[in-house]
């Protein structure tokens, strides 16, 4: 069954959606969308690192994404203007990564597959990386769920209950880096942030509780992956952008449905 490239593509999409649902919810609640973008862009630099050192690509991506996320979080904590810092680091890392990749000798894969993903070329090895990474993110978030949610409401409220907002922030930062490493192959560096934000935003419109929103985010992400793959298969459109476009359509439907139900 895993020999069929479409089956592998579908499973890869499901794996990514599993993690982006709950993590995407936190990205919205804590307004981390731009932060997610910066971490995702840094992945390109990670690809260059991996190609230059013969490391597996997900590992190189993970290393650079963690470094990027920790740097940004650290600078923000020290009072740097977050918007400016993210703008510089995000685009700086993307450009530097693209330049670095061009220096690496004998690269067969086209740049495009890292920028927009290459879900139809997912191998069994990729699948293993994706599912291990995604399950790790889900386990991490489930383990810390109550503390994460409390710290999201108010730092002092968390501190009064013995929860360290800084630790919870670090957990989310690491989870984000993991998701970036895992989702690169599926939607590419430029569209990872979209997979975090759009399904979660769609889920918000039809959710009454944080847990429901996290789970619905995963479901909507998975549906978007299937629809995007179908579109790509029948109409020969690029797969990654098709998935994100499908997610955007689902968002519009959910927003409309949510509005209707409220009236």
């Amino acid at each position, binding site marked *: 069954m895993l020999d069929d490239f479409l089956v592998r593509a579908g499973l890869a999409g499901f794996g990514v959606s599993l993690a982006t649902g709950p993590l995407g919810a936190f990205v919205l609640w804590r307004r981390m969308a731009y932060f997610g973008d910066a971490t995702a862009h840094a992945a390109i630099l990670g690809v260059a690192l991996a190609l230059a050192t013969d490391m597996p690509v997900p590992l190189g991506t993970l290393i650079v994404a963690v470094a990027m996320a920790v740097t940004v979080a650290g600078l923000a904590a020290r009072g740097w203007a977050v918007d400016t810092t993210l703008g510089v680091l995000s685009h700086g890392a993307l450009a530097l990564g693209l330049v670095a990749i061009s220096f690496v000798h004998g690269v067969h894969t086209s740049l495009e597959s890292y920028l927009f993903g290459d879900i139809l070329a997912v191998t069994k090895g990729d699948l293993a990386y994706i599912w291990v990474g995604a399950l790790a993110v889900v386990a991490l978030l489930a383990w810390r769920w*109550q503390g994460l949610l409390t710290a999201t*409401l108010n730092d002092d409220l*968390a*501190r*009064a*209950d013995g929860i360290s907002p800084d630790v919870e922030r670090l957990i989310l930062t690491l989870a984000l880096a993991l998701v970036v490493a895992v989702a690169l192959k599926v939607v590419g560096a430029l569209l990872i942030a979209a997979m975090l934000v759009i399904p979660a935003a769609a889920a918000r419109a039809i959710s009454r*509780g*944080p847990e429901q929103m996290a789970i619905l985010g995963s479901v909507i992400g998975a549906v978007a992956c299937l629809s995007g793959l179908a579109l790509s298969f029948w109409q020969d459109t690029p797969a990654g952008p098709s998935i994100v476009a499908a997610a955007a359509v689902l968002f519009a439907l959910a927003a409309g449905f949510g509005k209707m139900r409220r009236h």
Partner: protein
Amino acid sequence: MLVQAKDLTVRLGGAEVLSHVTMTIEAGEIVTILGPNGSGKSTLLRALLGMVPLSGGQVTRAPGLRIGYVPQKLSIDATLPLTVRRFLSLPHRISEVEAKAALARVGMADAEAKPMSGLSGGQMQRVMLARALLAKPGLLVLDEPTQGLDQPGEAGFYRLIAEVRQETGAAVLMVSHDLHVVMAASDRVICLNHHICCEGTPRVVSAAPEYRALFGLGTQGALALYQHRHDHSHDAPAPHDHDHSHEGHSHAG
């Protein structure tokens, strides 16, 4: 003794916000920290709870002391769907019975299914108080709990606090910048302007020259509260600048 501060000093961004504060909170008493805007009230509260690093002195909390904390303001992002019931279960999951009892206690029965984002300021304060009570606290800490409430709302909230203390025996530490209601609702008042100006029972404090200097008297006094920044030095040189308007009161330092 529940919480004790000795010679507590806090610097934030170079400025000395609190200087050599020494105070104690005993079991079961209602203590109000009173002071003008920017006098370091909230910082003192947070320092006593161990939420800000100290640059001098020490804070001791009774071992095993449970604290119920009500922050000044809770701004919940519109993207976070959160009902009152779910909020009460943060960070510890509680039973349906506990939730109902806590909400009934603060006069918010039937609010369980309401979204947090739809609550008014006063309702939000009551729900946050209900959540704080669920921790079965030995000390209840409230940071300007009646900010944004009208006068009846304010009086009602302080009445509620007094009832809760009566029932649970919890000590209460509050921060406020309004005089009249607080005076009636407290066992002890601490006047703060970066250092402790004076403290004691409401009657003693309201008669103290330091208090009168800090807040003035009558309606003019209430106005002076907002216009006026006061500092006097006891024995050490003043840690911060003087900015005085001497109208309507004499100097106490």
